[in-house]
């Protein structure tokens, strides 16, 4: 469902729920918050942080975002210590938590769990990742990073590299960028290529799409190179994983083939697909990208809690 322009009380569950106007508005608000911090904006508000599965960046950056706005955080990082272990349904857990808090941030390994929770709750629910499905705040911070580091989305060429079959960050970012007039290159071995459903959707929207497995050949085209990890946990067969795990690696040799102005992004964690020797180079913006989680998540919390417009 496409959402309306007002964010107050809204759930943030899927990038598919965002219009172009929504995206641009949220990025604008994040930019304003970064320039002018609002340490008392959410004073008296409580965020329930329900992390049913492990997370480092997302959990910490949501908590930091809430604290930096003057709010407070309750919650858990291990469902094993809660009534869920006793068999409590997600519906009941949500009904209980909404009585204690003003906004729920949820990560769950089961796909669709945050949407169910949003149906149970009268307060906003923000999806912090549900299995292989959605991670909308990651996509929003990716967009924010691109806008901040590169500028306009229109006319940009982005190269997605690595595991494009299972990588939810790639799927969601491609959906979000499909609202703009950019070109997309998908670089992956055949077994890990972008699903056809996404390619068809992008072409229908008039996006120029190129698919290849040749990173060296395509590198010169990119304004943004979005690198992803080959995810071991997605491979039922460890031998298959061994075959693909090192198929692409961004190093100085690849960087030389790219435009000098290229920006290298990665949703992190990385396991070897980017040479750490690139970390201090100005093209490497993946740590800035992770840091951008703060203004973006601050904007989301401020907007859904009705304290920002």
């Amino acid at each position, binding site marked *: 469902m496409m959402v309306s322009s007002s964010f107050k009380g809204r759930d943030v569950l899927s990038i598919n729920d965002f219009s172009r106007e929504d995206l641009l508005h949220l990025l604008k608000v994040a930019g304003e918050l970064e320039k002018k911090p609002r340490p008392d904006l959410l004073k008296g508000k409580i965020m329930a942080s329900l992390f049913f599965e492990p997370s480092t960046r997302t959990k910490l950056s949501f908590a930091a975002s809430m604290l930096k706005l003057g709010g407070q955080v309750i919650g858990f990082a291990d469902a094993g210590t809660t009534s869920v272990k006793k068999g409590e*349904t997600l519906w009941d857990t949500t009904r209980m938590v909404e009585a204690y808090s003003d906004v729920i941030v949820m990560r769950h390994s089961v*796909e*669709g769990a945050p*949407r*169910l929770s949003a149906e149970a709750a009268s307060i906003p629910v923000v999806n912090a990742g*549900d*299995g292989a*499905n959605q991670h909308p705040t990651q996509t929003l911070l990716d967009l924010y990073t691109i806008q901040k580091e590169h500028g306009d989305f229109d006319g940009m060429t982005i190269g997605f590299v690595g595991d494009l079959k299972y990588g939810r960050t790639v799927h969601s970012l491609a959906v979000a960028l499909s609202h703009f007039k950019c070109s997309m290159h998908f670089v992956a071995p055949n077994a890990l290529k972008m699903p056809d*459903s996404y390619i068809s959707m992008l072409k229908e929207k008039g996006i120029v799409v190129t698919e290849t497995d040749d990173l060296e050949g395509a590198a010169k085209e990119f304004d943004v190179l979005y690198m992803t990890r080959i995810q071991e946990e997605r491979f039922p067969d460890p031998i298959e994983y061994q075959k693909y795990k090192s198929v692409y690696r961004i190093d100085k040799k690849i960087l030389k083939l790219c435009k000098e102005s290229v920006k290298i992004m990665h949703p992190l964690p990385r396991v070897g697909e980017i040479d750490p020797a690139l970390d201090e180079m100005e093209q490497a913006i993946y740590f800035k990208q992770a840091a951008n989680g703060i203004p973006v998540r601050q904007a989301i919390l401020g907007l859904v809690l009705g304290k920002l417009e």
Partner: protein
Amino acid sequence: MSGKTLRIAAIKEGTVIDHIPAEKIFSVVRFLKLDKASGPVSVATNLMSKLLGKKGVIKISGRELTSVEVEEIALLAPEATINIIKEYDVAQKRQVTLPKQIKGFVCCMNPNCITNKQPVSTRFSVKNQDGLKLKCSYCEREMGQRQIRII
């Protein structure tokens, strides 16, 4: 009698579902729970059809399908036609139409969907471009017609 005559008795009152693709007929039977029907039900399959090659026909005496059931048949057999019979005549003939959303009777194909883990009624949006597709409102996974399983 010509060889084209169907050997399936006319009914006085009830519903005839025609133009069901032959391979779908027993899914429709199961879905409508016709194995538990109290009145007469005739099922014919592998009948010749210009449109479908081989088709099936179901005649259900004394029962009119609800509009929800008609929508649901549309998922299984979008080609089907439904005739309401009164006094041996076709009182109403209608093509099945796909609803925009279906609730509760199809399972999501994704084993890691919340609807397969907790007591939640399923919900799908229906798309019918380049073949029928159902998109789960919870896990957002799309499934094609072959993957549709009735709860």
